[in-house]
């Protein structure tokens, strides 16, 4: 039944980005981005820092207004909604922020309960049970409920952020660099949580990352963006769109360099300033 429903929904994309451009103070960040994300898909947005991955994700949820173009969620143009309609629509989104963005004036319990209190029609017992259930899903004990965010480690804060994003059972969940700044073990725990979340509910996910382990582990589909100032005029900003297998076999030099973590011709930029830099760059891929 669930699979049939999923297949039906796949006819129409859950998120559709049409010709979206974003500029901040005359600096273009995104240019004519077109993307369709079907329901149930896990899309990974790749790209180097400053290429506009996070801005694109914030545009989808309406935190950033596009300079031109529009974003459709479930057939609704979210840029045409007023404040209240947008607030209501956002109940269907979950957003895991890069540094968790927990409210530091509140305890962990109050943080996770926030979306429930804000909109849900739940009494305090129900809220407490749901909060504890969500925290245990991400592997945190009940004892953290009364702690303040500042008392937790980075990995724990990130898991609280995930619990808070999941508490309303969102249809679309977005992760902003979920493993940045974490040790390799905690990174893998987060990867596993992303996969389990998807397995448990038929949720659509967008993951912004530059961690290739995360990308290959969780992705159904990968999209790579390039910073605008590194593109020749007229070139599309999305330089790769495909499955992890297609990523392995791609011949695009820029994508290969990113996947293998090679500086390539960027060393030329360093050499301009410091002529003593090594002259040979590794070119084996």
């Amino acid at each position, binding site marked *: 039944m669930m699979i049939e429903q999923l297949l039906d929904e796949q006819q129409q994309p859950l998120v559709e980005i049409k010709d979206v451009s974003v500029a901040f103070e005359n600096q273009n960040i995104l240019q004519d981005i077109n993307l369709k994300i079907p329901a149930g898909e896990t899309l990974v947005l790749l790209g180097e820092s400053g290429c506009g991955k996070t801005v694109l994700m914030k545009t989808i949820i309406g935190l950033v207004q596009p300079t031109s173009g529009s974003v459709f969620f479930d057939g609704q143009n979210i840029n045409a909604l007023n404040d209240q309609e947008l607030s209501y629509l*956002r109940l269907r989104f979950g957003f895991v922020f890069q540094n968790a*963005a927990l409210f530091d004036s509140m305890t962990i319990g109050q943080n996770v309960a926030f979306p429930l209190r*804000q909109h849900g029609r739940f009494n305090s017992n129900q809220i407490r049970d749901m909060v504890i259930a969500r925290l245990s899903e991400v592997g945190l004990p009940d004892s953290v409920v009364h702690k303040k965010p500042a008392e937790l480690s980075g990995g724990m804060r990130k898991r609280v952020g995930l619990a808070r994003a999941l508490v309303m059972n969102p249809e679309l969940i977005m992760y902003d660099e979920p493993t940045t700044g974490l040790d390799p073990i905690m990174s893998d725990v987060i990867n596993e949580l992303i996969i389990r979340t998807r397995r448990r509910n038929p949720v659509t996910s967008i993951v912004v990352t530059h961690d290739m382990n995360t990308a290959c582990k969780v992705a159904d589909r990968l999209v790579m963006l390039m910073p605008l100032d590194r593109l020749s*005029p007229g070139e599309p900003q999305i330089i790769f769109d495909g499955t992890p297998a297609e990523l392995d076999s791609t011949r695009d030099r820029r994508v290969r360099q990113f996947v293998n973590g090679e500086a390539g011709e960027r060393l030329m930029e360093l050499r301009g300033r410091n002529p003593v830099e090594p002259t040979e760059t590794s070119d084996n891929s």
Partner: protein
Amino acid sequence: MSTIPNTPTHDIFDNTYVGRLASWIADWGKLVIDSLIAFGAFSLFNLRTLRWMTTRLPRSETIWPNFYRVGVSSLPVIALTGTFIGMVLAVQSYFQFRQIGLETRLGAVINMTLVRELGPVLAATMLAGRVGSAMAAELGTMRVTEQIDALAAMGANPIHYLVVPRFLACLFLIPTLTVMADFMGVAGGHFYGVTWLEIDIHHYWSNSIQAVTNFDLMVGLIKSVFFGAAIAMVSCYQGFNCDAGAEGVGRASTNSFVQSFVMILLLDLTLGIVLDNFYFMFYPDGASFF
């Protein structure tokens, strides 16, 4: 890889007399445009706050902590300021008045100055320094650490959740803080004038009663409401539009105090003129209002 070239500077801005004049005009034009944009953004921010305030009231758990911080926590510092200003006024004016044998008029001067001007202005200045810059720093940190985005992402409107309670707290509590500053100032003036300098208590107070009317008290309170609204809006706007990093938060906090203070001075002058005109419009012979 190609990079976007820098915008070429216009040829008319060369180092000739005309070129320098053109660049001077361009600088002024940019300043005017930037100020207009900032003014427009601030007005829109105020309108959105007003709209959310009338749509639905914020939840009590966001209102009471703000009322506590703005009202209760500010009381000691405002009481202290009031007391000292009352005493300092007495110190400074006593010798001038004694030389012409009018020291019993001191009560009228001190109390009038406090109730109409210094009480409201100093209470507002202390509030801008104590509460306004703290609000800007707090909201600025929330902006920088994406907590404001997180609020929006969870379907809460940041203006409704963060700005409206702070605005209401400043608006409703600044008149009571002003009354406190007035009262402590009057008490301080009495202490120095009557208790210390031994001015005749009967004349000190009968002169005060003749000079200070209820209208003067109302002028002070009406002004304070405007000051409170200005402090809340300027501080929240600065916090919401904070630049990234510790430097951005620091700048937001400083700007909020400086701009609030300028707003207080401008409003004080404007309201002083407007309210005086009202007074003389209704009471051309200068009779007491009540």
